[in-house]
């Protein structure tokens, strides 16, 4: 049983959902992000947020996967001041929607003054609403940007145990863990972290406060990043207990602090919810591994389309 706590499913196909469910992923968290093309109107941003709290949540449920999301203004678009101001007005309304588990992903891209302003404003909002935070650390000047993110969070007075610093690598992980934050790792080809490197990190650091995700999106990425890493780790002799923590339990613990994500959601969903939003067909009790579905595989191999 796995959770992928960073997956932009709005950019993915039904094949991904089928493969993820078949590989044992029971829940995903979809952070609000930069969709690849800048949004130039507040209205398009508002509709996007509606999509990830509503439609995408429903779509995932049709494949038996629980969908949660985080809402926020990403760092790239924070540089469009007119847009940013508009989005900030709408955020409080979205932050209390069903299944919103954090404010995120927020942080720095180029580390500009505007990025800093809206990063701080959103940290204040998370503090007021007592929500966890998902922090995107920058691709460029990463180490400094990561340190700076944590400095600002401490300055504002958020508890590090409520904050996931994501997209860590070998250079940033020690400081993130030492300062008491959760350390997320995105298993993303080429630009972020590979799973062989991840396995080495797990051997070195163990499973405490470490979270593995795929960050799969519109780029070349792998929606099976979490289960593949879990398998590689187990084959490389990482203890099962550690794998369970980094690929399931830790994400549940920190994002569960929102009160919007519980193990019962997928183990024993309430009837009214199953009728309307969730098509889960296997009730997994006692942490049993789910039965691997063969439908998706069959569909891929079948010449006939009906």
């Amino acid at each position, binding site marked *: 049983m796995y959770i992928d706590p960073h997956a932009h499913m709005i950019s993915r196909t039904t094949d991904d959902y089928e493969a993820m469910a078949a590989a044992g992923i029971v829940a995903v968290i979809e952070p609000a992000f930069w969709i690849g093309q800048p949004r130039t109107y507040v209205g398009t941003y508002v*509709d996007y947020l509606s999509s990830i709290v509503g439609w995408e*949540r429903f779509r995932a449920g049709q494949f038996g996967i629980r969908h949660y999301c985080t809402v926020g203004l990403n760092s790239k678009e924070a540089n469009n001041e007119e847009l940013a101001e508009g989005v900030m007005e709408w955020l409080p309304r979205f932050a209390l929607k069903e299944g919103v588990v954090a404010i995120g992903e927020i942080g720095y891209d180029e580390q500009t003054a505007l990025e800093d302003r809206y990063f701080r404003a959103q940290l204040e909002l998370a503090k007021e609403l007592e929500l966890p935070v998902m922090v995107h650390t920058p691709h460029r000047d990463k180490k400094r940007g990561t340190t700076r993110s944590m400095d600002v969070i401490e300055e504002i007075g958020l508890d590090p145990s409520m904050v996931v610093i994501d997209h860590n690598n070998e250079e940033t992980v020690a400081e993130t863990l030492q300062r008491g934050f959760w350390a997320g790792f995105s298993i993303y080809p080429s630009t972020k972290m590979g799973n062989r490197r991840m396995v080495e990190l797990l051997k070195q650091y163990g499973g405490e406060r470490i979270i593995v995700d795929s960050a799969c999106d519109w780029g070349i990425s792998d929606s099976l990043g979490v289960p593949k890493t879990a398998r590689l780790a187990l084959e490389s002799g990482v203890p099962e207990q550690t794998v369970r923590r980094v690929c399931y339990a830790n994400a549940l613990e920190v994002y569960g602090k929102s009160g919007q994500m519980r193990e019962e959601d997928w183990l024993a969903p309430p009837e009214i919810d199953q009728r*309307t939003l969730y098509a889960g067909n296997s009730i997994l009790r006692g942490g049993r591994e789910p039965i691997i579905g063969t439908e998706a595989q069959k569909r891929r191999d079948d010449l006939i389309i009906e």
Partner: protein
Amino acid sequence: MQPAQQVLHDIVLSRSGDHIGWVEKTLAALRAGAPERELHVFLGLAPRRLGKADLNASHEERLAADAARPGWSLEDWSVDGAARVLALLVFQGARPFAETFKDLRRTADAAELIALYRGLPLYPEPETLHFEVGEGLRSNLKPVFEAIAHRNPFPRDHFDEHRWNHMILKALFVDSRLAPIVGLDERANPELARILREYAHERWSAGRKVSPELWRCVGPFAVDDPALADLERALKEGGAAARAAALALSASPHPAARELLRQRPEAEDIASGRLDWQSLEAA
């Protein structure tokens, strides 16, 4: 008879548990013209504080609801949904109701959408809500579509024929049941029967099954030979299709329909009341 809002008020308060004080206080503020932000916060907190359980309305509550608004059913209502609709009803905003509704609908999550549309039979100025209802019908979220289509008297009372017919057709498209649609027999019409027969032909050509419920809206308008031929084809399929076709024949005014039915084993079950559209659900 109690007014609808009072019925809903009593139901919500009786399920508010420890939060009854918060609910009463907020409702009073909303009634007294509190800013819209208070409504947003109440809508956000309702499921967190009151829970999302089934409303499980009592027999008396169901009777009171149906008396206040004929066709208003509490069957699919949840506790948080009922509280949300009540808050919206008592809110005295500066804008017309339809504008507040539109604003809420635009940013609603799925559970909120379901609640907003379940409340349709209770809202003021129903004729101003047609655009909003259209948006809900177009939704790809089946439970949102069903919040309007199922156990809701709004379509029967306020839809024109075109919208009514397309709601029925969409229900079939998304594998939604027809039986829970309020006014299904009352609002049946020849144009709908024509659309549904063409839809059945399409399905047959594609080698797909036709929902047996479809024939319910065809029966009363099966007045010519081609229509009877369709029902005969469904009869030959056997099972639920045949039972549905027999029921449709029993509603047809065509003399040949009566003759066809007379030769069928289902005729006796229909005459005795053992087979009707409701019992077909179990088939």
